[in-house]
């Protein structure tokens, strides 16, 4: 039986090195390109001939974005801001969702099982939060580190805690997506190993399990993309309405 973590390994397909930094093209990069192509192609097709009575594809695209806007953006950020951030958060959601989903195709690589990928996304979200905060509130944005109604002598204790709890946000964002994808695919790999080892007589039992797990993984792929986008919207909303 092979190592169940083997399929997370990356191999340099086209080795490239720029100023001593390894930026080789590997499986994760190729998968992300494919995802971008699919999402872009789908929405390009959907918006090619926009009609008042939408066709099938246009209907689907409108449904996704409307769902995002009503349930994630407007509820957490307010109507006006939700509209402003729909393009960014919509892209984020679709990218993560398709990365998760295509990873379930046998032989494909799950780009979101690399902590570098999820970490980059989380840091991107957090930098946008910081830029929006400083653009909107100026230096008053440093008030995020000072919760309202704290006595002065407690500040030396509270401020470091607040700084760490702020930094923990992108960290937990990256960790959650990465951990969920890695765990799910490891379970699938272990079960597949059982099927091969146990031969036909009892091997069908883990195989039935795999079918159930696969359905569950599709659900997880959706939920994790949803959670990532939801949390990004919540953080952005908190930054826009400081201590409101």
């Amino acid at each position, binding site marked *: 039986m092979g190592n169940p973590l083997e399929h997370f390994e990356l191999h340099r397909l086209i080795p490239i090195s720029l100023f001593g930094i390894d930026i080789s093209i590997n499986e994760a990069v190729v998968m992300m390109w494919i995802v971008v192509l699919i999402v872009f192609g789908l929405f390009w097709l959907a918006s090619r001939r926009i009609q008042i009575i939408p066709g099938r594809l246009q209907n689907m695209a409108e449904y996704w974005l409307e769902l995002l806007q009503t*349930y994630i953006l407007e509820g957490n950020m307010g109507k006006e801001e939700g509209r402003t951030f729909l393009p960014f958060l919509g892209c984020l959601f679709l990218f993560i969702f398709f990365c998760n989903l295509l990873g379930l195709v046998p032989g494909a690589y799950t780009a979101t099982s690399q902590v570098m990928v999820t970490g980059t996304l989380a840091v991107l979200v957090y930098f946008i939060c910081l830029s929006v905060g400083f653009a909107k509130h100026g230096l008053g944005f440093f008030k995020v580190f000072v919760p309202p109604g704290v006595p002065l002598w407690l500040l030396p204790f509270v401020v470091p805690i607040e700084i*760490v*709890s702020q930094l923990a946000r992108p*960290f*937990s964002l990256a960790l959650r997506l990465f951990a969920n994808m890695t765990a799910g695919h490891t379970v699938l790999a272990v079960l597949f190993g059982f099927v091969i080892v146990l031969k036909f007589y009892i091997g069908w039992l883990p195989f039935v399990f795999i079918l159930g797990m696969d359905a569950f993984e599709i659900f997880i792929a959706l*939920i994790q993309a949803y959670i990532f986008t939801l949390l990004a919207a919540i953080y952005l909303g908190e930054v826009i309405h400081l201590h409101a």
Partner: protein
Amino acid sequence: MEGPQKEGYRDLGIVIRVGIDLVAGTLLGTLLGYLLDRALGTKPWLMVVGIFLGTIAGFRNIFRYLNDLENKRN
């Protein structure tokens, strides 16, 4: 989606969020402490401080989040 169903989706979000937030705070505090220790050569004291700070920060994040939720419901 109607009211109760929407609420169900939000509750699912809470369940998924709370567990990782707790671990992430502790992990981050430990990591920051460890890196500072290595940079400043004060092993192991900053890591000890970092573990405590990170744990408190993780709880604080969850506490604030659940508090907001409670306020929103009422």
